[in-house]
């Protein structure tokens, strides 16, 4: 299977990847490239079929836009409606270089902030394009009727976010992701109505089909009837999100999984920088051992909330009984320039240090305070309510505490994954015809994503990048019919899927899927979480394969394959997470430096900040699959920084 990777044109003999970045100045690359791309004329577009897997911001935007262009699209999601994809849970906002505030923002500044925020491990050309497209996204979404927050004059309002000193984040209360997704979903619904997109909800992709070195379709399972079937097309687009659920407890929805991109990886698509995981600083701490997920409290709260812990370890007084003098506002103390608005990776590690130093708060001493009392005193409760009302309500529901009266307790949790399938400038993976969008690819955020940039990237990829670049791939295929869905390559993929399903049901062991998933998550959090070292990673690499083998020997999946069977769905996803977790740790072990969300304790400055090694590691590590448990092959894409000078990040 892995032979596909070596056949594809992007992988040169020396294992160095060519991202096919267009020549010319960074600011002109995208325009020039769009001109150079081959086009498909309007009448011919209907002769092409495209499969889109996933209907979050990237997938729904892509499916809708491709449908508008006239392509025949099939869209798939495992949820019961495309409107429920996990983009919907994004809270805080979406960045755009509109400079409506006249505060010095520009495309260049958003580009610079994103490259710096990503700790110089992203691809400059992609990031510049993202910053350019950010302004078009806001226009597009406003035209669709996304109810962005407005000033009294009727113009768009913005707020500040971590890692930036300008106010460029557009928002819709604390539900920006929901509103942007509903916009994309409505555009998709219009195309479904017009017949350009066929929608398949409650349908899970379980394999990519590769024929003659190209992606030609997918194998899916109908989650209601259990039926396994094949769909063929001229191109396949994966927009299936991230893999934070490898930690079991994360801010992701319970259904989020790695299966689609892992199956593509097994068929030859390289997996890039999987160790770049983002641990979000502001989540509600776990309350008991039954915790099934962690809930994010938007980073936007750091605009008005101040983070502190008691200055003395073991101070158990209630927060209102602790006077100013006995509090340590540690972010403001350590990072005076950015204060509570330092990037996520910096804020997360700082709170870990406080909790590790026994200065944690709450019944389990596993959090830090996020305190609104200053802001309420300055602005009044009604202003805070208007800005964060739904978040405060959510906090109250979960903890039983009133955040207007008692400071919130927060702690970091796995949230976003910067790594993903390797893609070139056109967002095509190393399997020709397989495109990857949004969080599922690796391209734009380097080692750390700035707040309010995920929505920007998902929509840029879906609305603007893919609809332009896919024509370059499709145009030369004019006149070729898709490989029929009953072709032998589909039949053998279906057989493999059915065999996997049957094998999981046949084990009939003693432990549930969730039990294994929790154990895997514990290994990942303890050994490959906010801080990693060679020693902890070696432990993880010893324990994961052993637990994976135990899973296949002793998992209990009740029920049958011919019905709605949620245990079976989970079992397939956890089986893939096991294989993926090992690669994540291999990548973390390999990257002997600290950067962004990847913090190796061996590599830090005297002040405990991440210490990069640009001499040795200024590259994308893209891994090729060689078999379960086998050493993956490493391909490198060197990163050149021509427009943003490499520097040690400083937010002091």
């Amino acid at each position, binding site marked *: 299977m892995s032979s596909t990777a070596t056949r594809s044109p992007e992988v040169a003999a020396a294992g160095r990847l060519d991202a096919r970045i267009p020549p010319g100045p960074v600011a002109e690359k995208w325009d020039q490239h769009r001109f150079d791309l081959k086009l498909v004329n309007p009448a011919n577009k209907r002769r092409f079929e495209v499969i889109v897997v996933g209907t979050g911001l990237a997938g729904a935007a892509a499916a809708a836009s491709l449908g508008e262009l006239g392509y025949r699209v099939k869209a798939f999601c495992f949820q*019961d409606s495309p409107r429920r994809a*996990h983009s919907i849970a994004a809270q805080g906002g979406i960045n755009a270089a509109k400079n409506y505030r006249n505060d010095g923002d520009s495309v260049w500044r958003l580009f610079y902030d994103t490259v710096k925020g990503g700790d110089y491990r992203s691809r400059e050309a992609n990031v510049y394009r993202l910053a350019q497209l950010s302004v078009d996204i806001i226009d597009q979404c406003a*035209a669709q009727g996304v109810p962005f927050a407005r000033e009294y004059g009727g113009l*768009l309002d913005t707020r500040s976010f971590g890692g930036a000193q300008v106010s460029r984040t557009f928002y819709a209360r604390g539900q920006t992701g*929901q509103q942007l997704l509903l916009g994309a979903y409505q555009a998709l*619904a219009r195309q479904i109505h017009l017949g350009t997109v066929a929608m398949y909800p409650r349908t899970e992709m379980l394999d990519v089909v590769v024929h003659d070195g190209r992606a030609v379709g997918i194998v899916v399972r109908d989650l209601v009837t259990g039926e396994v079937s094949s769909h063929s097309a001229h191109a396949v687009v994966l927009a299936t999100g991230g893999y934070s659920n490898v930690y079991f407890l994360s801010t992701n929805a319970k259904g989020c999984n790695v299966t689609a991109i892992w199956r593509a990886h097994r068929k030859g698509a390289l997996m890039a920088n999987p160790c770049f995981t983002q641990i979000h600083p502001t989540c509600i701490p776990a309350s008991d051992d039954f915790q099934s997920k962690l809930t994010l409290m938007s980073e936007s709260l750091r605009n008005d909330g101040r983070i502190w812990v008691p200055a003395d370890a073991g101070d158990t007084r209630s927060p209102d009984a602790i006077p100013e003098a006995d509090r340590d506002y540690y972010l403001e103390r350590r990072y005076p320039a950015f204060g509570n608005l330092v990037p996520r990776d910096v804020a997360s590690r700082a709170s870990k240090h406080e909790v590790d130093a026994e200065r944690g708060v709450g019944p389990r001493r596993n959090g830090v305070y996020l305190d609104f009392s200053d802001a309420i005193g300055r602005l009044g409760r009604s202003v805070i309510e208007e800005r964060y009302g739904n978040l405060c309500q959510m906090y109250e529901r979960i903890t039983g505490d009133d955040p207007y009266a008692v400071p919130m307790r927060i702690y970091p949790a796995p949230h976003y994954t910067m790594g993903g399938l390797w893609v070139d400038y056109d967002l095509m993976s190393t399997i020709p015809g397989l495109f990857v969008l949004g969080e599922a690819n690796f391209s734009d955020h380097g080692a750390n994503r700035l707040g309010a940039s995920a929505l920007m990237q998902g929509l840029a990829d879906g609305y603007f990048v893919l609809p332009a670049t896919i024509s370059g791939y499709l145009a030369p295929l004019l006149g070729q019919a898709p490989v029929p869905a009953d072709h032998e390559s589909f039949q053998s993929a279906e057989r493999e899927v059915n065999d996997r399903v049957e094998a999981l049901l046949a084990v009939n062991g003693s432990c549930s899927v969730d039990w294994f998933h929790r154990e895997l998550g514990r290994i990942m959090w303890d050994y490959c979480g906010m801080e990693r070292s060679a020693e902890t990673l070696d432990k993880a690499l010893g324990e994961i394969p052993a637990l994976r083998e135990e899973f296949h020997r002793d998992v209990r999946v009740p029920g049958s394959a011919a019905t709605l069977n949620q245990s079976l769905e989970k079992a397939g996803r956890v089986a893939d997470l096991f294989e993926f977790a090992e690669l994540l740790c291999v990548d973390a072990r390999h990257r002997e430096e600290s950067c962004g969300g990847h913090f190796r304790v061996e590599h830090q400055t005297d002040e405990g900040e991440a210490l990069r090694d640009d001499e040795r590691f200024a590259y994308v590590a893209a891994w090729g699959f060689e078999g379960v448990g086998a050493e993956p092959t490493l391909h490198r894409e060197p990163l050149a920084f021509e427009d943003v000078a490499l520097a040690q990040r400083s937010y002091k």
Partner: protein
Amino acid sequence: MNVSLRVWRQDGPDDEGRFEDHAVDGVSADMSFLELLDVLNERLIAAGKEPVAFDHDCREGICGSCSLMIDGRAHGPELGTATCQLHMRKFPDGARIVVEPWRAAAFPVLRDLVVDRSAFDRIVEAGGYITAPTGSAPEANMTRVPKEAADAAMDAAACIGCGACVAACPNRAGQLFTAAKIAHLGLLPQGQPERDQRVLAMVDQMEDLFGSCTNHGECEAACPKEISIDFIALMNRDYLSAKFRNRKLAGRR
């Protein structure tokens, strides 16, 4: 704490279904209701039985996947709260809790507590959008939107499409969902050109799939996002005026 659950079990759409009783002990007050079901399921699996199927995903009250009639109330006893955000501290120790799926002809049961809510998607597909093909949008600040209009649109757009309004309605009417979507788009300047055709198409589709509204108001009480029933009045007014208005002349007013 300890609770006993009476849970609806149904093997498939054609099975007639039945209740099953389960005692669950060692429940933590900080658990969510769905985590209670997780614990029940773990114990069922350990006992060699099939777990209870239920829809859930984000578990933070925004995706709208979770449902459940809990003691006859959609999303349970706490107002303005989806089941995933409902915590066991809201129940007394020893509570006996009845758990059922949404019951509505438009939402057929697929298995246990899982229902098919795709009827909502049909309503949106009928016209619940503003036509704005990618790339065609003008500069965003060209269209000023009065803050009050944006805020009211957002109040309506907060709908998560969970279906509690339908499940709570004695008539199984889809008015609150449909009205929220129509108001979200119809209150904004961008939504004006298609306002009439939108309300006509969506209401007609809704009438095909759901029961009729007779102003019980149960929908508003059950809504986890506390969407106002006023939007239904707005929808009815829009529907009526759309029937009378001649859109060909709209540009002259």
